[in-house]
C-alpha cells in the first residue's frame, strides 16, 4: 500500500463521527428490516431444507437421504451438471476473455468496446425460456443453422449424433449467456493491467512473450480462474433454460430438484432436500475459492 493511501485512510479514521457511533437500539432499527427480511426469506428457507434433509418421513434423524445421493441416477445427474458447468465455464470463459482482451489490450477502436459492453449486458441477461426458443430455432431439427449445414456443407448434425436436448446442445445454449458474462466480469481486471508493466518489462529487455508469460498472465490468472468459477456456479444452478429446452427430460441436478418439488416421478421428499443441500454445498465451495482468488488479486492490485 502506498503511503499516500495510508495517509488518506488514517485521515478518515481520525474524522469525528456525526454523533457517537454506539447510540444503542436506534442504530439497529434502521438495519432491522434488512436483517429480518434476509432471515425470513434466505436463512429460514435454507435452514429448513437443511434440517429436513436429516429427517425421515416420520420426523426422525437419518442420514439415508444423503445416502440417496449416491444412487447411480443421482450421481449421474451431478456428473452431467458438473460436466456442462465445466465445459461452459472453460469455453465461455476463454471466448469471453479473448474478446475482452481484444477490446481492452488489443488496440481496437473505442466504439467496439462500448458496443461489446452493451451487447454483453443484454446477452448475459437473455436466458431462460426465450433463450431456449432461440436455440431451437437455430440448432433444433429444423433450425436455421442445422438446415444450412445440411444444404451447404452436406453435414447432418443429427445423424452425427448431435442433439440439442442433450449435453452438447445444452452446453452450446448456456454459452450464449456465459461468454458475455465473462466479458463483463473480466474487463475490470484487464483494465487493471497497467500499461506501465508492459513498458517496464520491455524496458528491462523482455520480449512480448516473456511479458505475457511472466507478468500479464500471472497477474490475470486469479481473476480468470475466479471469473470461470462464477460462470461454473452460474450454469450449475441454472434451471429455466434447461427445463424449457428439454421439457425436463435431461438429468440435471436442478431438474431433479424441480421434479421433487412438483412431487411427480419417484417422489422422495427427503432426497429432494439432500439434493438441494448438496447443491448449496457445491456452490459454497465455489464461492469460497472465488473469494480466496479475488482477495489474492485485489491485494496485488491495491494501488
Amino acid at each position, binding site marked *: 500500500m502506498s503511503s499516500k493511501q495510508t495517509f488518506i485512510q488514517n485521515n478518515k479514521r481520525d474524522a469525528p*463521527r456525526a454523533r457517537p457511533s454506539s447510540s444503542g437500539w436506534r*442504530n439497529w432499527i434502521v438495519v432491522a428490516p434488512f436483517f429480518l427480511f434476509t432471515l425470513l426469506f434466505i436463512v429460514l428457507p435454507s435452514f429448513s431444507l437443511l434440517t429436513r434433509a436429516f429427517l425421515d418421513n416420520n420426523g426422525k434423524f437419518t442420514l439415508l437421504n444423503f445416502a440417496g445421493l449416491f444412487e447411480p441416477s443421482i450421481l449421474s445427474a451431478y456428473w452431467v451438471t458438473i460436466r456442462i458447468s465445466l465445459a461452459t465455464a472453460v469455453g465461455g470463459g476463454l471466448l469471453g476473455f479473448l474478446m475482452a482482451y481484444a477490446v481492452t489490450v488489443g488496440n*481496437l477502436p473505442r466504439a467496439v468496446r462500448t458496443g461489446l459492453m452493451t451487447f*454483453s449486458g443484454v446477452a448475459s*441477461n437473455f436466458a431462460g425460456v426465450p433463450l431456449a*426458443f432461440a436455440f431451437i*430455432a437455430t440448432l433444433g431439427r429444423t433450425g436455421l443453422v442445422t438446415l444450412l449445414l445440411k444444404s451447404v456443407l452436406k453435414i447432418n448434425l443429427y445423424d452425427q449424433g448431435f442433439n440439442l436436448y442433450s449435453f452438447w446442445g445444452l452446453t452450446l445454449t448456456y454459452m450464449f449467456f456465459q461468454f458475455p458474462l465473462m466479458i*463483463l466480469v473480466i474487463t475490470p481486471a484487464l483494465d487493471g493491467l497497467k500499461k506501465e508493466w508492459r513498458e517496464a518489462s520491455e524496458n528491462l529487455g523482455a520480449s512480448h512473450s516473456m511479458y505475457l508469460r511472466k507478468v500479464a498472465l500471472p497477474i490475470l490468472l486469479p481473476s480468470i480462474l475466479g471469473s470461470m468459477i462464477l460462470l461454473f456456479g452460474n450454469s*450449475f444452478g441454472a434451471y429455466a433454460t434447461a427445463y424449457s429446452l428439454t421439457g425436463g427430460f435431461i438429468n440435471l441436478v436442478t431438474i431433479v430438484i424441480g421434479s421433487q418439488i412438483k412431487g411427480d416421478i419417484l417422489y422422495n421428499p427427503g432426497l429432494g432436500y439432500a439434493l438441494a443441500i448438496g447443491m448449496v454445498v457445491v456452490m459454497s465451495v465455489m464461492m469460497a475459492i472465488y473469494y480466496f482468488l479475488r482477495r489474492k488479486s485485489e491485494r496485488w492490485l491495491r494501488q
Partner: protein
Amino acid sequence: MKRRSIWSWLWIVIGMLYFILPLYSTFDFSLRAKKGVLSFLAYQRVFEDPNFWSTIKFSLVIAIFTIIVSILLVVPTAYWIRLRLPKLRVLVEFISMLPFVVPAIVLVFGLIRVFSGAPFFLTNTYFGTYVLLVAGYVVLALPFVFRSVDTGLAAIDVQSLTEAAQSLGANWPTIIFKVIFPNLRVAIMSSAFLTLATVIGEYTIASFLVGIKSFGPYMSLIGQNKTYESSSLAIISFMITWAFMGMIQLFNRGKADTSALAGAR
C-alpha cells in the same frame, strides 16, 4: 501491432456470430407462420392474445414491487453501515452474496416448504403467493442491488455529505430523501432496470409459485404447442431485455456494471 489487431478482430467476429446467429435464426423462423411468404403473422397472433398482455402486466407489477422493496431494504442499510455500523459491513456483504450460493430452484423449494405450512400459510391465498414471489425476486436481485448502491455510496462520501447536511440543520428524513437518494439516482436506476430485465421473463420461481399468470411460464406454455409464436415471443423478450439494458447505459453513460449473476437462468 497489426498482427495483434487481426487476432482481436477475429475473436470479436466469432463472438458476434455466436450472438447474432441464434437471433437471426429465431427472427427468420418467426416470420414463417404463413406458408411460403414472410409475414408478421406470428407477432400479430401474439399481440392479439389477451394472455400475452395480462401476463406481461402481471410480471411488470411484480417487478415494480420487487424494485421498491429492494431499494427500501438496501439503501438505508447500506447507508447506515457506512455511517454508523461499519462493523456490520462484512456480515451484510456476506448476506448479499448468499443468493449466489442458493440457486433459484433451491430458494423456491425452501420458500414453498417454509411458507406453505404453519404459521405462515402464504401459499393458501393468491396474495400470499404474490408476496412470496416478490420476496423471492428481492433475494435474486439482492447481490446486484446491494453492490450497485454500495458503490454509489462510496462515490459520494456519505460521511461528509451527512455532516454537511446536519450542520445546515437538516433532519434525518431530509438527509435521506433530499441528500442521499438524489445522489444515488444512477445506482438506483441502473439496479432497477437490471431487476426489471431479470424479473420480467423469470421462469424458475414463477412457475412454482404462480404458474402461467406470469410472463415466463406463459412463454413456456406457448412454446409447447405454438412454434412460430414462441419464436416471435423470444424476439419480443429479447427486445425488452435490450431496452432495459439500454436504459442502464443511458443512466450510467456507458460505464454499466450490468452483471446480474444470480439471474434467472
